């Protein structure tokens, strides 16, 4: 009895699963086991903890974000494959490979994982890698907070994946609309897992948002006023502003949902004075800006790439900045277009429809400006440019599909259909993911010192573009044929089956693309001697990151640059400007384990809250509180790098001449 109390809702049944889940858990356990074995065999544990897990270096944190995100992308991609397999088989008398409830958990986890742990992870990874170097600084404003953000992200990710092994996951879709997500209709711990993994990762995102706003506003190098910032930095500033305004809404909303489930309040229940429509409004007040949080940095990345590979100034810089801020503000005025079908009336629907279309204007301007950057340029079609071309081709279609969906009567017919699913995947895959992949490939030499294999890079991009077309054009068609999202079974008379099979083949091609992308990195690292970037400036680049050695030293700049113009590095090359070599001692943040430790508390808090294990949640809270206090009391947080070391490093990379 005592033990039962100590374990909350946990019992033996929480560990019983069907075969597919067991295989998943098996793969997860084996991967962790073999990774540990390898670390022990190569005696790398100390290296792992000392150099990486405790690191406050924004570049290492960025790399870790990207590794976690790619793992999550693969996992959620596997979910997609399971979904399409089910839908290809489950027709008429055949019921496929998955039970309905399991299928519903899979699409819920697919969406949640992709948005929060794949896309957000890649985004924060790239921001971490690039932003400080692009603005000419040695670190972010709050290096330790940055590691806390990262570890909260990891903690949320682990909690989400724990649901595969212990208990179950939410089957209420990636946004868990009540009343379905209320205790009455979802009595298991699934929705609580959803709530707490987002809660923990969401706080991490909010802290990152604050960190990067302060970094961009306060840590720019001398001479770089706002209108001289690279466009990527502008886009990140816009995106992080959205994070700071939107994420508290998410945190509050899912806290209320948790209270409904835990203590029986009636915020969103049907009946008892609750109102599910309130939840739908609130969740989209976060959810719509979230889309722009993800897409803006991708826009920024393409702005850098298209200018670099066209060897030309970005066209319409001022226009671009205005477009970003127009999008930031407008993105808070359109949330209702996610539920035109709720019956709000013609005036309300008409207003939000028009607001939604207005967002298309700044977005269209950006596309035209990129194209005009290519005009009278000297374009090399390197792998990042192939991603860019794919982005323009596919994102434009997704964009006009979005404008179409913004007309309420058109939305009545296409809402919740696979047409809608195809639309938002056009934005998130060919917009967001293509942008981030292009960014990783583009900046890879800078943080690793290794140039990536071009051939594999191009094949990967072509496979993704091809795979996207094969996977999602059938979904547009299926939407027109009346197929709704989230179905695990349908009648053969609908004529949908062939299209589902084709879409499944598309998922396989995308999977092949992901494998090629990963092997591009592995192969290039394997051949690192011949792929070494010896100049620090492999593309004849424009912005500050190319002015330093590759891989970027952990202090980024031996001498902080002084900026005179936009794209200052390019201009300084044109003017053959030389710089004063005045070296000074610098201080850098010391590594710290406290962020890692704090996130273990967050996990305990979350796990305890999911399973109603009160003592565990209290322990978790105490760990978090203790970590913050411990960090506050730590005074010795920095160390000094003497200027002699900086000079030595520079000579080693550039040779005596410079």
């Amino acid at each position: 009895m005592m033990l039962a109390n100590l374990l909350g809702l946990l019992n033996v049944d929480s560990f019983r699963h069907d075969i597919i889940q067991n295989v998943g858990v098996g793969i997860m356990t084996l991967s962790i086991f073999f990774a540990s074995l390898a670390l022990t065999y190569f005696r790398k544990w100390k290296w792992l903890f000392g150099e990486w897990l405790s690191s406050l270096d924004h570049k290492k944190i960025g790399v870790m974000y990207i590794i976690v995100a790619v793992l999550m992308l693969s996992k959620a991609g596997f979910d997609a494959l399971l979904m399409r397999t089910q839908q290809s088989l489950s027709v008429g008398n055949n019921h496929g490979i998955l039970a309905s409830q399991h299928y519903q958990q899979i699409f819920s986890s697919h969406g949640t994982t992709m948005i929060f742990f794949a896309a957000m992870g890649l985004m924060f990874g790239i921001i971490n890698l690039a932003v400080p170097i692009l603005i000419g600084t040695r670190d972010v404003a709050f290096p330790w907070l940055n590691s806390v953000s990262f570890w909260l992200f990891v903690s949320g990710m682990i909690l989400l994946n724990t649901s595969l092994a212990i208990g179950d996951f939410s089957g209420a879709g990636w946004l868990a609309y009540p009343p379905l997500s209320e205790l009455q209709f979802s009595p298991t711990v699934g929705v609580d897992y959803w709530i707490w993994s987002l809660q923990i990762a969401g706080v991490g995102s909010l802290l990152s948002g604050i960190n990067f706003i302060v970094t961009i506003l306060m840590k720019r190098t001398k001479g770089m006023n706002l209108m001289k910032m690279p466009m990527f930095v502008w886009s990140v500033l816009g995106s992080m502003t959205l994070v700071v305004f939107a994420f508290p809404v998410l945190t509050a909303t899912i806290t209320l949902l948790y209270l409904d489930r835990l203590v029986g309040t009636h915020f969103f229940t049907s009946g008892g004075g609750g109102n599910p429509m309130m939840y739908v409004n609130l969740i989209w007040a976060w959810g719509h800006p979230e889309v722009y949080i993800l897409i803006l940095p991708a826009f920024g990345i393409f702005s850098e790439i298209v200018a670099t590979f066209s060897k030309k100034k970005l066209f319409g810089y001022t226009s671009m900045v205005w477009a970003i801020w127009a999008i930031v503000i407008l993105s808070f005025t359109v949330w209702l277009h996610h539920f035109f079908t709720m019956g709000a009336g013609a005036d309300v629907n008409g207003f939000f429809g028009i607001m939604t279309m207005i967002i298309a204007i700044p977005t269209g301007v950006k596309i035209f400006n990129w194209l005009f950057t290519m005009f009278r340029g000297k374009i090399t079609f390197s792998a990042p440019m192939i991603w860019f071309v794919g982005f323009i081709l596919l994102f434009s279609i997704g964009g006009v599909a979005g404008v179409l969906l913004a007309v309420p009567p058109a939305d009545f017919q296409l809402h919740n259909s696979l047409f809608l699913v195809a639309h938002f995947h056009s934005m998130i895959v060919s917009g967001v993911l293509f942008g981030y992949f292009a960014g990783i490939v583009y900046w890879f030499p800078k943080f690793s010192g290794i140039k990536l294999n071009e051939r594999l890079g191009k094949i990967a991009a072509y496979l993704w573009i091809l795979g996207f077309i094969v996977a999602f054009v059938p979904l547009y068609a299926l939407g027109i044929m009346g197929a709704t999202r989230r179905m695990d079974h349908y009648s053969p008379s609908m004529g949908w089956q062939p299209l589902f099979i084709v879409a499944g083949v598309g998922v396989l091609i995308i999977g092949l693309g992901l494998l090629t992308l990963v092997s591009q990195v592995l192969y290039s690292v394997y051949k690192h001697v011949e792929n070494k970037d010896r100049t620090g400036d492999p593309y004849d680049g424009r912005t500050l990151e190319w002015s330093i050695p590759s891989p970027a030293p952990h202090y980024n700049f031996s001498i902080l640059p002084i900026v005179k113009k936009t794209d200052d590095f390019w201009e300084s090359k044109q003017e053959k400007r030389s710089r004063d070599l005045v070296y000074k001692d610098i201080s850098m943040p010391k590594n710290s384990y406290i962020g890692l430790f704090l996130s273990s508390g967050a996990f305990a808090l979350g796990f305890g809250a999911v399973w109603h294990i009160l003592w565990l949640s209290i322990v978790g809270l105490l760990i978090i509180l203790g970590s913050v206090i411990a960090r506050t009391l730590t005074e010795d947080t920095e160390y000094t790098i003497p200027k002699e070391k900086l000079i030595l490093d520079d000579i080693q990379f550039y040779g005596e001449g410079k």
Partner: protein
Amino acid sequence: MKLAKVLFLVSLPIIFIASIVLYVSHHNAQVFNTAGTIAKDEKSIILFSMFLSLFVLVPVYLMLIIFSVKYRESNKSSKYSPNFSHSKAVESVWWGIPTILIIILSVVTWRSSHQLDPYKMIDSNIKPINIQVVALDWKWLFIYPDKSIASVNSINIPINTPINFELTSDAPMNSFWVPQLSGQIYTMPGMSTKLSILSDKKGSYSGRSANISGKGFAGMLFSVNVVSNSEYNNWIKSTKSSTKVLNDRSYETLSKPTENVQPFTYSFVSADLYKNILGKYTLSDNNMSKVMGM
């Protein structure tokens, strides 16, 4: 890249998309294969927006292709102006074209939002038929209040007659969607939404729930049979003569979760059933004490 190779690469997706379009046109593309006035108007709005979007897509694709070919590095004969980064004229066009398109579409949006407001009753000199719809776990209950009959997962309606639906849910949120007749509307517990349709083509049209509502969601299928007036009257008569009665007790049984329910009918429905289902969720004193356990 050689021109032949580029053409080959470009033609692949075009052939793929064309074959998908061909496939769809030979099957029941429900959204476009309309059998009702509302669906027809919605279809024309979809097609108009698609047409309008060509004014963005075509220039974007053309510029992408032309600039990619003309200004590639290996083409030494093209002009190179590395500092051409600003032009008031060009940028005004960029802001101008999308603005004009959006203004046109905004007018369409505002007008059509009002014209095709699902709450607006359809003008007709034929007397409309009222049908109350209740989404249950996991089936649809249809009540004909004026005839005191009800049916599950299938309804018959007469051709060319306006139908006014009132919809609610006694389960999680669902969405009522018959693509060939009209766009969808949510059904929510404790709330009543409205939808008016008119069908001008006889036939049987499939409907489903478009919003996830739990385990049996995929099986929440129903059919709307559009029939002639005499067939409709006969159907009412035969329904009246069946034995099943829907009162509070049989409703209790019906509302328990069941999946893939085959259609059946009730010969009699108690008058206030829909009102009572709605009332379950409103905050009366009686309900409050139930909810709070007092």
